[in-house]
């Protein structure tokens, strides 16, 4: 666990399973790797980075994405290619989501927890710009973008000019949280093949 995202995904995945959505989580762990089905019915695949030495978070992230792709591909083929949708959280695994979409025709939802512009205000070093360019790629390639608040909705419109009709607010504090999430998924699932 690094931030509050881990708890959120855990709660969301548990609720999705209860609502009869087959849910797989692909994530990172440095030592406990492999695929398991947890007590709540969520199937989790954890991968580590085969490259141990790095010069920055970007090289670490971009190499780790290949392992994320490997784990995701294993799930895809294991499920007889019946994966309708990918939901990616923040910039880290956008490269994998983008390749999986273009390779296997699986649309993805990009859920925004935070943006580089907020995490590193007024930073325009190549490092920050690089992360911003990955966020941009995510907004461009995503079928839908989900945010948790009106404020974040306005921010991604302001900073990235994301079309408003692409953005959906799914607030965890709302009574209709899971319903909203499932409804969003349903508008996107299988969307690429019909195009």
């Amino acid at each position, binding site marked *: 666990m690094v931030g509050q995202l881990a708890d959120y995904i855990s709660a969301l995945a548990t609720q999705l399973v209860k609502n009869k959505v087959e849910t797989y989580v692909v994530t990172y762990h440095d030592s406990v790797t492999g695929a398991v089905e947890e007590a709540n019915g969520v199937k989790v695949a954890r991968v580590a980075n085969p490259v141990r030495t790095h010069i*920055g978070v970007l090289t670490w992230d*971009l190499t780790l994405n290949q392992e994320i792709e490997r784990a995701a591909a*294993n799930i895809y083929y294991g499920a007889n290619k019946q994966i309708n949708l990918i939901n990616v959280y923040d910039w880290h695994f956008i490269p994998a989501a983008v390749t999986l979409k273009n390779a296997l025709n699986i649309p993805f939802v990009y859920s925004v927890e935070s943006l580089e512009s907020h995490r590193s205000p007024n930073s325009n070093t*190549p490092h920050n710009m*690089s992360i911003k360019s990955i966020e941009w790629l995510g907004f461009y390639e995503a079928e839908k973008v989900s945010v948790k608040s009106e404020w974040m909705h306005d921010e991604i419109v302001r900073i990235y000019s994301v079309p408003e009709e692409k953005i959906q607010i799914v607030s965890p504090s709302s009574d209709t949280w899971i319903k909203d999430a499932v409804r969003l998924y349903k508008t996107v699932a299988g969307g690429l093949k019909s195009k």
Partner: protein
Amino acid sequence: MKNKLSVMMFTWEFPPRVIGGISPHVFFLSKSLAKTGVKVHVITCDFPGAPAHEVIDGVDVYRVDSYKNPAPDFATWVYLMNLNMQKEAAVIVNKLENKIDVFHAHDWLVATAGIGLKHIFRKPLLVTMHSTEIGRRDGLHTDAEKMIHETEAWLTYEAWRVICCSDYMVSHVRWAFGLPEDKLVMIPNGVNLSVYYGIENDLAPFRSKYALPEEKIVLYVGRLVYEKGIHVLINAVPKVLEKINAKFIIVGSGYMKEQLQNIVRSMNLEHKVLFMGFVDEETLLKLQKCADVSVVPSLFEPFGIVALEAMAAKSPIVVSDTGGLSEIVDHDVTGFKTYPNNPESLAWGISKILLDENYKNYIRENAYRKIQEKYDWKKIAQQTKAIYKAVLGEFSKSFWA
């Protein structure tokens, strides 16, 4: 095979983008594979003026926007470039309805694109290791070097087969990454004989621009850097001139250029040593045809393509007995081997060839025959195709098939 064998190659350089040896290698390999009936798709980096997609002699070449994402340093740029390369390749494979049989990556510069696509499309991955970080740097001294080394190790781990261009590189790569012996294959680098066809005609006016009729031409082609041993050749110049009248033509550039020019000036031999810098392709081919002897005095050499080019141009060669050069040359048969880092030995080899016309002709004829037998792109393409087929045979028994 039900359909035409189809391969997708990844390379960070492809003509007109030429940085090192991978670019011409993939250029000739892909074209020669196409002639043997293999469908080749090359995915590479963009270059100003070069089209995003073109077909060259049956090879589909796709150039990817490689500067889409700003990068803080070279290694990070490489991984970001791979992000875009992988995405574009995914689109292409998808459009081709997955009709790609194998992925083939060239060096760590395209490692992550190849590794990810292997798993997503469940196709075998092959890699050609042209060089290694641990070899280039003579050890691993920084985190960046270690990271590149570990990426190379990962790539060779993920690959079904690892191709190297010389026996020297096979043993080096095996040692560097602890690979099992049966994973490695040696397929030599090739040389294109046809580029020298028809150049013979009318070389006298060209030659007269560089040397007097009574001067023999000694040619060096390579970067002017320490590991290429160019300083050994410069130190051999006076020893050769004691015996024979010659002009030394140095093609290439590098950080040692000024230092070397100063040495030549201090020896009062500026009229005998000509520093040409970079030259265009046609001038280079003509110089290789004109040369009475070509010298490759390297101290470290994974392969030694310059020696092969000279052999293809029918220029007799004098090389230092090291690395890939030791394999290319049979001493006294296809060339003359000298002790590395030894100007006396080098001067002796050069003089031997320049003074003995019969010996010179014997060497160059043998060398040309060897080139045709072993380093012809057609043969190399056939060997590569055979490896693809062998891998696909093994693959057909795997649970991915």
